[in-house]
Structure formats: structure tokens, C-alpha cells
């Protein structure tokens, strides 16, 4: 056993860290003050796009992909190191949906033509993606979705409604699940499509979050024409690809390192901020709360290394049950971290961005937003179901 990085990996890690520490000096403060800012505010989206360009120029967005699709055939571990460092700097620049979820799926299941068409654009940070899966009546039970795609000649004509589509109003393309066989009620009748969001018939309506931000959307599809060439995999076999995508969403190393950084910043705040004549950090209650979070974060990080290791060793699919565990461990940690931060701020914990607000009202924003992490990409309950059935071999309860 050896927990160290090799000297080359250490050097790489330092290179990433140096880059981000410089670039993140220019981050708009709004980005850090709200989990939803990247999609909500022009200035934050712009920063994401600009940083993406720089990362692309460095060849870092898609390190582990094959060269022919814009990658550089780097070992997976380098990609993870990059994710970890990027999480630590809370840096945007990598499309979490396109690069994070769709690309690995395409690498395994898409046609050569599709890979050549889409992957290089992602590697160059030229196209951002949204995920057109959930529907009003198909959330956790995604396989029950009813958006219909009917083949007519060389096209599919799509009708239906999607919901909770993060960033649909910002992104260029979407990947969608739609029903191609209405006889099959569940997963067997679904196909996986790539959709240009500018296609006529697509209407995007904002859904505002509790913290008043525009991140979510409803997407209405009326006679939207999708070329047959944009179907990934065989007709009616989209479910298999979609399950792969879900697993890619869940390694969480960046979320744990993000949590660690958040905690460090909270600690810094408690050292700097005086309350009742002494720094908050001297208050035994505050110290215990911070220590508890530090313990939880360390345990989570250690776990996420094991997930990463298993992903490298056995592949993303075999590590899926472990990744499901990482998902709820990470998101619930971030929730507790924000609740604790608000507790420590006392009366100021409720103040929104204004001259009275600690850290631009970030914690009260996060207080309203952090539970979204427990739902997006599969709820904590579903993740626990997966751990129970896949990792522990217990009978399915649903």
C-alpha cells in the first residue's frame, strides 16, 4: 500500500494548483456566494466560459480521453488529481454535465462519427450541455418517462416535457431520454438522443429556486426534429447508456475537496471574526463544531480516494455501488457544513447579500440551496437503495 503520489503526479498537482490559484484571483465574488450563480448570473457564466478556454488550451479538460477525440491519453489518476485540485479551488471551467457525464458515456457507447462530432468540442470547451432526463412524473423513477420520439424517415419527431433541466437556458446541446416504444412501459422502450438546443420546437421556461436564482428550467418539446444520426446506441436501448452516465456523475472527489476548502474558509472566518470580545474560534462550542466537520471531511475524503482507486482498478461500472455511497456522504456533508456555518454566524446567519452579511450572504444562500445536492443526480434515498442492493446484496425494496 502507498498513499503517496509519484513525484511526477506531485508535480502535476502543483502545476494545477498554481494555475488555479492565479486564475481564481479574478473570480467574480458572486460565484462563490451562491451554488446557483454559474447558471443564474451572466458574469459567472462568462467566467466559466473564459476559464474553460484556458483549461482547454492547457489540454486539461479531457486528459484521460484518447488523443483522437481531443484528449491526451493520460492515465485516469491524472484526471482525478485535476478534479481534486479544481474542487479545492472551487473553479468552474469544466462543463459538469457534458464533460462529467456525457463524454464518458459517448466514449463507451457512441458511434465513431458521434464521438468525432462531439467530444473535441467538449475538450475545447466550445459546447456546454444540459441533461434532458427528468419529467414532471418521472423523477427517481426515470424509466417511467413519457416524452415520445417517433421515427419518420431520417428523423425522430419528439414531443413531451422535461423539467429541472439545469442550465438549459445557457447551454448549447442537451442529451435526452425519450420513449421510442410506447408498448414498453419501462426502461426497455427508451432511446438516448443528442439534441441541439436551438432546434425549432424547443421552448425553455425558467423555474426559480428558493434563493430566487434561475438555474432550473422546464423544457417543452413540440414536434422537435432530431436526426437519426443523433441517437446514441440502438433504438430502445438508451437505458443502458443512461445508467452509465448516472454512474459517472458520482465519484465526488471534487465535492469532498470542495468541502475541505469551504471548511478551511469557515475556520479562517472564525479566527478573524470577534464575538463577545474574542475570536469565534476561541469559543469551545464553535471549536467543537469545526472539529466535527473536519473529522467528517477527512473520513469522506479517505473514502473517496478508495472510490477513485476502485474506479481506476476495476472501471467506473464496477465501482458504481461505492460511488453511490460517495454521493450521499458528500452531499450530506456539504449540507451539514452549511447548516453549521449558519449556526456559527448566529443572528447574522440569516442575512442576505448586503453590508450586514458575512461573506456576501453566502451561507444563507447555501442554506437554501444545499439540499439540491441531495436530489440532483439521484436522491440520497435512491443512493442508499443502490448501496443496499448493489454493494450489500440485500433484496430490492422498490
Amino acid at each position, binding site marked *: 500500500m502507498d498513499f503517496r503520489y509519484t513525484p511526477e503526479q506531485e508535480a502535476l498537482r502543483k502545476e494545477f494548483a498554481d494555475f488555479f490559484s492565479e486564475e481564481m484571483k479574478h473570480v467574480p465574488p458572486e460565484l462563490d456566494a451562491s451554488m446557483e450563480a454559474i447558471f443564474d448570473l451572466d458574469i459567472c457564466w462568462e467566467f466559466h466560459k473564459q476559464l474553460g478556454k484556458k483549461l482547454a488550451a492547457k489540454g486539461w479538460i479531457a486528459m484521460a480521453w484518447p488523443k483522437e477525440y481531443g484528449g491526451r491519453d493520460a492515465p485516469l489518476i491524472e484526471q482525478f488529481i485535476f478534479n481534486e485540485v479544481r474542487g479545492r479551488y472551487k473553479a468552474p471551467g469544466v462543463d459538469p454535465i457534458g464533460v462529467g457525464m456525457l463524454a464518458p458515456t459517448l466514449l463507451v457507447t457512441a458511434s465513431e462519427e458521434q464521438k468525432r462530432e462531439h467530444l473535441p468540442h467538449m475538450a475545447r470547451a466550445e459546447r456546454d450541455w444540459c441533461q434532458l432526463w427528468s419529467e414532471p412524473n418521472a423523477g427517481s423513477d426515470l424509466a417511467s418517462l413519457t416524452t415520445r420520439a417517433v421515427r419518420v424517415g431520417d428523423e425522430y419527431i419528439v414531443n413531451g416535457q422535461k423539467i429541472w433541466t439545469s442550465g438549459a437556458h445557457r447551454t448549447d446541446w442537451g442529451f435526452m431520454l425519450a420513449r421510442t416504444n410506447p408498448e414498453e412501459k419501462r426502461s426497455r422502450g427508451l432511446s438516448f438522443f443528442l439534441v441541439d438546443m436551438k432546434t425549432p420546437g424547443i421552448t425553455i421556461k425558467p423555474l426559480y429556486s428558493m434563493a430566487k436564482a434561475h438555474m432550473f428550467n422546464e423544457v417543452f418539446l413540440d414536434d422537435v426534429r432530431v436526426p437519426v444520426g443523433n441517437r446514441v446506441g440502438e433504438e430502445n436501448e438508451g437505458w443502458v447508456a443512461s445508467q452509465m452516465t448516472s454512474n459517472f456523475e458520482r465519484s465526488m472527489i471534487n465535492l469532498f475537496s470542495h468541502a475541505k476548502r469551504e471548511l478551511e474558509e469557515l475556520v479562517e472566518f472564525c479566527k478573524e471574526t470577534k464575538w463577545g470580545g474574542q475570536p469565534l474560534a476561541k469559543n469551545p462550542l464553535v471549536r467543537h463544531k469545526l472539529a466535527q466537520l473536519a473529522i467528517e471531511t477527512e473520513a469522506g475524503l479517505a473514502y473517496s480516494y478508495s472510490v477513485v482507486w476502485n474506479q481506476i482498478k476495476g472501471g467506473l461500472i464496477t465501482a458504481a455501488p461505492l460511488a453511490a455511497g460517495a454521493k450521499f456522504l458528500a452531499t450530506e456533508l456539504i449540507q451539514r457544513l452549511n447548516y453549521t456555518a449558519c449556526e456559527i454566524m448566529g443572528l447574522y446567519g440569516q442575512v442576505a447579500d448586503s453590508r450586514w452579511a458575512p461573506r456576501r450572504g453566502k451561507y*444563507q444562500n447555501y442554506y437554501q440551496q444545499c439540499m*439540491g445536492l441531495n436530489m440532483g443526480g439521484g436522491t440520497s434515498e435512491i443512493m442508499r437503495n443502490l448501496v443496499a442492493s448493489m454493494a450489500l446484496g440485500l433484496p430490492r425494496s422498490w
Partner: protein
Amino acid sequence: MDLDLTEEQEMLRTMARDFLTKECPKTLVRELEEDEKGYSPELWRKMAELGWMGLVLPEEHGGMDMGFMDLIILLQEMGRNIVPGPFFCSVVLGSLPILSAGTEEQKKRFLPEIASGEMILTMALYEPNARYDASGVETKAVAQDNNFVINGTKLFVENAHIADYMICVTRTQEGASPEEGISLFLVDSKSPGIKCQVIPTMADDKLCEVVLENVSVPKENMLGELDKGWRIVTRALEHAIMAKCAEMVGGSEAVLDMTLDYVKERVQYGKPIGSFQVIQHYCANMWTNVATSRNLLYKVAWDLGEGLPVAKEIAMAKGWINQAYKFVTERAIQCHGAIGLTRDHDVGLYYRRAKAAELAFGDTDFQKELVAQQMGL
């Protein structure tokens, strides 16, 4: 022993519930979150006509002479409907201290107008140091001729931007302990030297910053005795805490109800999500939190109304109900899934208010410290 509501209390509850369901829909609640004033003068007038602002005031002062438990029942319903506006600060923080500590003259001058809804009161207690206890009172009042001159900054003052008068808690002397040397004044909000600004908050509940610069207040506006004001504050807070608990219990009941409705209706995997055991356990835990909160509320509020010593129990009740209301609203969102996170869904209105309510008059950590002290630790 009789743990049931009286017939009159049942009537009050039903009447309040019907009235508020009709007159204070969530559309209004949302509208008022964005509204500068934060309350509806029309709803305010109707509530005044029902006699609510004077519910516990004596008839001679324009009130209905009902008891503290009746007010608790009413506030529970207001919490259930999350009624926006200055009812709490005017009635609980304003009229009760005047009733208990005011001179005959002050009672005559303020109470009938509060009872009729014509006058809105609030209390200016907390300051930028954000301390809940007496040591937080740094705003100074200094005697000058027939007046006192007040200087300082008050923070998190409920609805100060619309209040006509505020009970301003000031330091008139550095005493041997923080509790000594505190005096209260009924300050006209329009006095020269007062600047007021609404602080943006998570619950959009119109907490204000009030800056007082050489504000002159006539001596006869002192509430209670010079330097002995903290006793009045303590008593006011005891009532305010139980009143806040009543709102919180009402809110948590509403959230439990809406969650139960939802998990019965929402179908995933071919069955209502309420048939999944994990959701059932969440609901069972929410329900026990609501039930314990309600019973603790009634028990301690009743004791308080009877004049029994309840300092410890009040801290316990607030400590418990703080956590319960937050838990219930948080699990409610988890049961709702993504829809629970939207601006348009009601559950978020309660989730945000649960946090704000915790912070009012002492968060959980503060209450635990009080309990520990009361336990002789």
C-alpha cells in the same frame, strides 16, 4: 387535569383558521415578501376588527380580556399560515410589556391604539454585537433636562420601518452586572435622529437596522424604572419566546400536513412514495417532532400564563422547538424532491422561516446554555 382546549379556544382556532385560509393565501405571503412594507393594511384592518390585536388586553384598554393561552392558540394558527406583518412585534413585543410595566397613563395612551390596529409597535433590543443577553445592550441613553438622549445602533428590529413606536432597550448606567443599568423607552419612530433600513434576510421578514443619533425622548416615555429595565425585558422575552414557539408549532403542523398529502399523491415506481419505508420513517419522525413540540408548547405556555416559575422550561421549549421545526421543514423538502426547492412551492416558505424563527430570541446553542445554567451547572 384537562388537556383539551376549552370550547371558546376551539372556536377561536376554527375561526382563525377559516379566516386566514381565506384572507391570507400563499399568493399574498409571497407578494408581501417582495413588498417594501411587508404587510397588507387591508388584512391588518380585518384582523383588528376581529379584535386580535387586543386579544389579551383588558376591556378598559380596548381589548377582549382573553388569556395568554388564547393568544398562543391564535399565534399557532398564524404560524400555520405564516401571516406576514407586524402582529407579533406590535402585540407580543409591544403591548405586553406596556401592559405589565407601563404607567396608567402609558397604558391609556398606547394600548387602545394598539388594540385597534391604528398604532404599530416593536421592540429594539439586539445590536451589531448580536448577543442575546443583557451584555449586548450598549446603546446609551443619557438624561438631559426633561429628556433622555439615545445614541446607538439596533439591529434585527422587527418591522421598525413601519412601526410608530419602538420600545428601545438602552443602557443608562454601567452596573455591577450586565443586567443592571438598563432602561426602556417608548420612542417615537419619527423622532429626529432615527434612521431605519430593512436588512435583506433569508425569510424576507423585514428585520431592520435602526440607527439612533442624539434621539431625544421625554422622560415620561420611560417604561418601568430607571436602570431596572432588564426585568421587563426578561418577562417580555418569556412571553415572546412562547409566542414564537406557538408560531413555529403551527408552521410545523402545516408542513407535516402538506408533506403527508404529497407523499400519498406522488407516485414513483408505480406506488405512492409514502409507501416506501424510508419516507414513512421520515414522516413518523416529523410527526413525533410536531407532537412533542405542541405538547411542550402548551405545557410551558400554560405554566407561564399561570405565573409559575418557568425560566428553565422556556429555554427547553425553545431549544426543542427550534430543532424540531428545522428538522420537519428539512425532511419535508427531502420528501418532496426537487419541487420542494423552488420559489413557487410552499414548503420553502416554511423552511426559510424555520431558520429565522430559531434565531429569534435565542438560537439553540444559546437556549442550551440557559438550560445548563438553570440546571445549576
